[in-house]
């Protein structure tokens, strides 16, 4: 039995299935498998392998950190739904961790964090110190930047953004699942909302093009 409470972090918001188990500050086990599809089938077998590698069981967990994106809508939902199910059955908190906060974890100060939004776009947010996030979506070379000049940049579009801000490019301190577990571990004990996906993009839906017929008197 591990000496300190275990926190599990996992993420399927991009083309991967990633998970880490944190015991205190120590990542005792972690996995990162690249995959474009199949995360829904792989996630639980991977989590069970991870627990068994650490000699732990589901009941040993004190909390769960789950990546809420932004990223692939379906991928984000796979992990968020799984985390909510686990939280319900284990009676432990599941804590949603935005990709921006995972990137900013372990950095000495605020950073402009960026995540791939496909189609030449990126999700950006000033992150760090658990500040509230106000993400924007845009082309890295033209979008109005939500950070002052000199703010270090991290993540998918870091080089383009750092050139615009005249700042440094930072590398993430931890792999994403480890960072998610660390953020969650720090938030444990504080009242947290249930994890919910951070989509940033609205759902692709348009009202019907055709107006209903006029009803005559």
């Amino acid at each position, binding site marked *: 039995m591990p000496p300190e409470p275990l926190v599990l972090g996992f993420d399927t918001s991009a083309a991967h299935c990633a998970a880490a188990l944190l015991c205190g500050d120590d990542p005792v086990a972690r996995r990162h498998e690249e995959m474009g599809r199949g995360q*829904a*089938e*792989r*996630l*639980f*077998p991977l*989590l*069970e392998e991870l627990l068994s590698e650490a000699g732990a069981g*589901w009941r040993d967990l004190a909390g769960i950190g789950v990546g809420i994106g932004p990223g692939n*809508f*379906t991928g984000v*939902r*796979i*992990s*968020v*739904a*799984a*985390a*909510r*199910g*686990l*939280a*319900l*059955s*284990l009676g432990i908190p599941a804590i949603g961790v935005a990709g921006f906060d995972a990137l900013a974890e372990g950095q000495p100060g605020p950073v402009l964090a960026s995540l791939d939004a496909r189609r030449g776009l990126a999700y950006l947010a000033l992150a760090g110190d658990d500040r509230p996030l106000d993400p924007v979506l845009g082309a890295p070379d033209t979008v109005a930047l939500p950070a002052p000049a000199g703010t270090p940049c991290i993540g998918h579009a870091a080089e383009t953004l750092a050139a615009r801000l005249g700042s440094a490019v930072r590398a993430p301190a931890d792999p994403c699942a480890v960072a998610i577990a660390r953020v969650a571990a720090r938030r444990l004990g504080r009242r947290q909302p*249930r994890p*919910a*996906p951070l*989509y940033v993009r609205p*759902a*692709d*839906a*348009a*009202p*019907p093009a055709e107006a*209903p*017929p*006029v*009803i*005559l008197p």
Partner: protein
Amino acid sequence: MLPASDRIHNGARMARTLTLLGLESSCDETAAAVVRQAEGAAPEILASVVEGQAQLHAAFGGVVPEIAARAHAEKLDLCVEAALAEAALDLSDLDAIAVTAGPGLIGGVLAGVMCAKGIAAGAGLPLVGVNHLAGHALTPRLTDGLAFPYLMLLVSGGHAQFLMVRGAERFARLGGTIDDAPGEAFDKTAKLLGLPQPGGPAVEAAAAGGDATRFAFPRPLLDRPGCDLSFSGLKTALMRARDALVTSQGGLHEQDRRDLCAGFQAAVTDVLTEKTRRALAATGDDRPTALAVAGGVAANAGIRARLEQLAADHGVPFVAPPLGLCTDNAAMIAWAGLERFRAGHSDGFDLTARPRWPLDAAAPALVGSGRKGAKA
């Protein structure tokens, strides 16, 4: 709480009470339910929670898959908690977790499957993947204790098929729609005529004051043998009739709308009745114990009355579950899961969510039979 010895699932046909939680999220209802059955006794629905999404989709004239998936992902666990509270049970009182694993809108199905995996993993309970259509098809056993085999007409917003139900996992499809589902045709009719969604009740209400003989709408596929159905041509005919009126008068009078609805509903009713007559005839010596219906379209009083008469003419009982169990719900998923589980089946945590999953894999594909195979 059951004795510990009763909780070991070894596939043996031991007499025991089973209690299952079911989750459903394949279209636009988020649902959770608890069903219990002592072997050989009538099953009991201990809780059934259905959280509809109609208002989320109302502005779009149909279910938007991404909007549905977003709602399911944040509602499922709440529905499960509500169902357990309604049943006054803990997860430790359950024997397994059943979940719709397809067919349906994949985003919603995935949310359900992942939530169910999380619950099953954390609670140390077996996971049972359920075919949504099997849920509908087995509902008459939950509500009326029907014995196999029976003939099922499944008519909803997403499906239309005739099934000979021979066992909890044995279905023979006698026919089905080659294009739209009838519920979809009701919804499109409502949309074309400026009536509210869901279209079924709105069109039925309007049709009550209409003249079904004013418009001569087609009865698709009646000229062909067999039990297959088609509704897309009927919808086109309705649109043409509407457009002709709008062109000549600049709009529709309330009576036009009623007559269009009445004509449309009469055509659907005639087609379903005749095809059901053929399906009953096709069962031959393999006499069904009943004609059963399921799906939201079975709530239409006119259709129901004609089918009931048809069953009486054939000397078979007619079984229509209450409306709340005809439309999408999780009690049917818990029940279909219970039947599978009692037979010794469960799934691993690699259970796949399937957008397409025909109940009768041996029957030729009807709809969307591209390289990925039949939808349903």
